[in-house]
């Protein structure tokens, strides 16, 4: 569950974080205004930092074209899940209050440089971008709407994996979304998957890795199992670039690493190539 490990790492950032930003990859410090002005991209190591779903939508969808759908689909506490740190319901409600989102993916119709598309964007700030029943339902519905309206599908992933608070039905969302993606392709529509930092666990092992083309940004973390789990299993240190975007591209699982500033144009070019 990488999202949790990350949360711990983030907690180590000193309280001066209101003014200072620290690149989580190279740990270089800079004024927050510099980090923001550079589009949350590290000027030192080119790590492409995390964006909220709304920030991403603003960068990808043509101004004024994004129309959100399925906002009525939210989380479900069907297990009445409680753990040592409290109950799931209060945790999600706090996340909803903090982020303004009510699930870990935002879906809607839009135009990308004039090309009609069905767009889904995950938000890592929402429960570590975890895949819950609401997330899976939104993605499945987005797939079905894409088919009904003949729209190419574009999904930006950012997730630590399945949401364990929703138990087995969160696992089943992997199968549900993958089945729905299969139908998009069978309907003759393209699926562009953008795996952003981080995309791991049950999300990388379902729709995120099923793109007709898989794109990512520089230095993004992409993988299935967590680094520590693997190191504990094989009793070996892993290379520093293990599970990085560059590593994945080298091993053949990513079509292209695209800089954030070029992403919209690249996606639009692909959609144009397929005549959408």
């Amino acid at each position, binding site marked *: 569950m990488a999202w949790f490990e990350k949360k711990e790492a983030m907690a180590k950032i000193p309280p001066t974080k209101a003014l200072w930003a620290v690149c989580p990859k190279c740990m270089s410090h800079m004024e927050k205004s510099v980090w923001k002005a550079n589009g949350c991209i590290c000027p030192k190591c080119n790590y492409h930092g995390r964006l909220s779903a709304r920030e991403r939508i603003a960068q990808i969808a043509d101004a004024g074209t994004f129309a959100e759908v399925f906002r009525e689909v939210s989380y479900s506490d069907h297990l009445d899940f409680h753990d040592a740190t409290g109950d799931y319901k209060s945790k999600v409600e706090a996340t909803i209050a903090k982020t303004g989102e009510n699930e870990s993916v935002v879906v809607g119709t839009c135009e990308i440089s004039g090309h009609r598309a069905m767009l889904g964007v995950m938000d890592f700030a929402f429960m570590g971008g975890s895949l819950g029943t609401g997330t899976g339902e939104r993605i499945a519905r987005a797939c079905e709407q894409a088919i009904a309206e003949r729209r190419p599908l574009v999904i930006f992933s950012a997730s630590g994996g399945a949401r*364990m608070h929703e138990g*087995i039905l969160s696992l089943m969302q992997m199968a549900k979304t993958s089945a729905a993606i299969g139908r998009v392709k069978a309907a003759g529509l393209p699926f562009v998957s953008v795996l952003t930092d981080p995309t791991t666990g049950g999300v990388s092992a379902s729709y995120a890795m099923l793109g007709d083309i898989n794109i990512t940004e520089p230095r993004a973390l992409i993988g299935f199992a967590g680094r520590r789990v693997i190191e504990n299993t094989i009793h070996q240190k892993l290379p520093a670039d293990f599970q990085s975007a560059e590593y994945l591209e080298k091993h053949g699982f990513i079509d292209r690493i695209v800089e954030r500033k070029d992403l919209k144009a690249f996606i639009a070019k692909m959609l144009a190539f397929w005549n959408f």
Partner: protein
Amino acid sequence: MATARAKTSDRKTARPSNPTAMDRVKLARDAKRPHLKDFIANVFDDFEELHGDRLVNDDRGLVGGFASLGGFNVLVLGHNKGETVEENMASNFGMANPDGYRKAMRLAKLAERFRNPVVTFVDTPGAYPGREAEERGQAEAIAKSLEFFAALRTPVVVVVTGEGGSGGALAIAVGDRVLMMENAVYSVISPEGCAGILWRDGSKAPEAAEALKITAPDLLKLGAIDEIVPEPAGGAQKNRKAACSAVKKAVLAALKDLAGMPVDELVERRYARLRAMGDFY
């Protein structure tokens, strides 16, 4: 946590003979429990193993081959857990590599061509978390497998026989009928893993096991499985032959049930089954 605990103790006092979730986890992991080789020997006739993914490897964590069962020629796929340490070393404790999932897809594609039903046996702690597994695309292999089995044009019967460990289990558990042995468990994360994260204490696994709802009766209620296969008193390890007979009966009934269905309808129903998972909205 207080609530989870209260519920656990309620259940204990109310139905003392009923095993807790963690009791079932232990039964599901029991080395003496029937494993793939027992099911191959006792459920089917004439098993012929087929090796390899035609790409890089023959994964030993996931095994496949042709067999017959009550007049059906079927493809058998399953996680290959062993009984002894030596067997488990050879089969990676039933943890499949990407090559295993790709072999499963290769063989299932062949089964589809000749309309042979597929029967899968799910029993794994999870997909193998290794360096080569990641380099060869563990995530991609599981994802492809989910997409692939959802659209496969031949019946698929799944039996969760022991540990249904997360994505590594699900990759061969997408089917038309999902059966689960009485003391098997099936979960998004191991109770120990969940306890380590949400309780910050791996020893709280019993609480996590209870909270996650991973037993066959719980999963039946949630609609994640379709049918529970009863086990001999005290668990399948007490009488493997009898446990295998019960599985044989249930698999055969499911195969007969699915055999007459037109393939288009079969695939539509399989999609609808998945589509209904967790639709609370």
